[in-house]
């Protein structure tokens, strides 16, 4: 192995750097193509007739996106409310309370849960949860059902993230806490939560980002009605399910509007990203 500076190696490395650079900026390629296909949607319609409008009938040139923007937001917030605290407590449990023998079982089950395709969750929701909800809260498919199914889907991601975060806790802290005879509650509240609040917040935002982006599972249980929900059980449609539902059949302006939905989704996650890690990027 020669230690002298080798010209070919340098060129190869510069080439690799270029590749690396291009791919780290991939999002701009994505944005470019999205804007190319969906950008002129905003130019053809007035903002008052799309973003805050509530009627979506493409065959009659009505493109009200308002209810779907709200739908996406609500369903993901609710899902986070269900799954966030649960995954956090579960991660804490895994680390500090779970007996060693159960740990590997929990690990494997989480892995399996993580890899269950979204269609399967949706199918499960459609044939198990919806028939349960329908007689009690007609029509059965809606905001709450979708949030429940989504919550189950984002649970494993939250769990894995929080476990990874908890792993970075220095052993010395644990040793010190144990020697002060602190209980688990105190450990959680006073030590872990206080110092890792920021990192947990990041974990929550990761979960909600995943929730906003989920399509297939929500498609089957949200009802797909375009309206501002007036109750927890009202059917809704999200930006993602709208794209999945209508993409194959859309032409011209309708198609453009769906690409615009894609742009809105990226805007959503970008804002969430800045919220969670703003300081990391400034």
């Amino acid at each position, binding site marked *: 192995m020669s230690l002298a500076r080798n010209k070919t190696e340098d060129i190869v490395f510069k080439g690799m750097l270029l590749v690396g650079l291009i791919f780290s900026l991939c999002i701009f390629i994505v944005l470019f193509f999205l804007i190319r296909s969906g950008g002129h949607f905003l130019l053809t319609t007035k903002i008052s007739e799309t973003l805050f409008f509530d009627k979506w009938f493409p065959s009659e040139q009505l493109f009200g996106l308002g209810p779907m923007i709200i739908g996406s937001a609500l369903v993901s917030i609710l899902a986070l409310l269900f799954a966030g605290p649960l995954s956090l407590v579960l991660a804490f449990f895994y680390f500090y309370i779970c007996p060693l023998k159960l740990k590997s079982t929990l690990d494997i089950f989480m892995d399996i849960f993580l890899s269950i395709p979204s269609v399967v969750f949706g199918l499960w929701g459609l*044939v198990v949860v*919806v028939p349960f909800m329908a007689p009690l809260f007609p029509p059965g498919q809606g905001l709450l059902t979708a949030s429940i199914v989504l919550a189950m889907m984002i649970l494993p991601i939250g769990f894995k993230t929080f476990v990874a975060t908890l792993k970075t806790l220095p052993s010395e802290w644990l040793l010190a806490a144990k020697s002060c005879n602190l209980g688990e509650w105190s450990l959680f509240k006073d030590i872990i939560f206080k110092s890792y609040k920021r990192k947990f917040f990041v974990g929550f935002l990761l979960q909600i980002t995943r929730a906003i982006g989920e399509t297939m599972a929500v498609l089957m249980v949200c009802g797909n009605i375009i309206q501002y929900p007036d109750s927890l059980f009202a059917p809704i449609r999200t930006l993602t399910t709208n794209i999945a539902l209508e993409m194959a059949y859309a032409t011209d302006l309708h198609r453009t509007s769906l690409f615009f939905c894609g742009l809105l989704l990226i805007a959503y996650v970008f804002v969430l990203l800045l919220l969670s890690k703003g300081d990391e990027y400034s």
Partner: protein
Amino acid sequence: MKLLLFIITVGLINYSHAADNQVLLTGSSTVAPIMLDIATAFEKQNPKSTIEVQTGGSTRGIIDIKRDLSQIGMISRDLKPTESFLKHKTIAIDGLGIIVHSSNPVKNLSKQQITDIYLGKIKSWKQLGWVDKPITVVHKAEGRSTLELFLGYLKIKNSKIKPNLIIGDNEQGIKTIIGNPYSIGYVSIGAANYNIKNKTPLKLIDLDNIKPSRANIVNKTYPILRSLNLIYKGKLTESSQKLLAFSSGPEALKVLEKHYVISPQ
């Protein structure tokens, strides 16, 4: 090392061109399962041919033919006047049936009643002779030919319909109806019958006292009918021609029966 592997793999991609004995069909998700079975039977008799069937909706069927992306398109409706430059062959007749849960005692609905249900004027099953429970109206998403057929029959605009749930594909609708005993929806008769014969708790309702039976579809008394068509343009390759001819042959008829649709003869 990994890069090397990558380059080798990319180099191993062999480019397959649309050879003369390959046929690609795209389009309606209603016709696709039928054509898939017909294609399998065809390939048994013509081992050199490769038939590929893909869904994507009737609209995709038309677009792909226009853009020369496929050889034959599948649509679950008739060609529109703007599409008259395309040629078509009807391989089956299907109808649109109104479905409810099997525990629902209602046996017949008039066209006016259905219109009122979908416009939101009739809200409870009590007005139709059953319990006082709200009707859950299940409707299809925009762009699908089933929706257009239904709206065309009722002669109302989509923006006037007041649905409680919107579904995408046939089976999603069926699963929704099964899950909610107070729901009503519409679906292809073939799909409904297939499920009913497989003991799902589903029921087809008579329309204006006309039963959605095979006889009524054949003699065209049932009001909502549609033809399942194969579309193509210009000159066809030999394999495509053979396939088209095959789709009205005896083997194809067996497939149609299995899918509970009627042959146009």
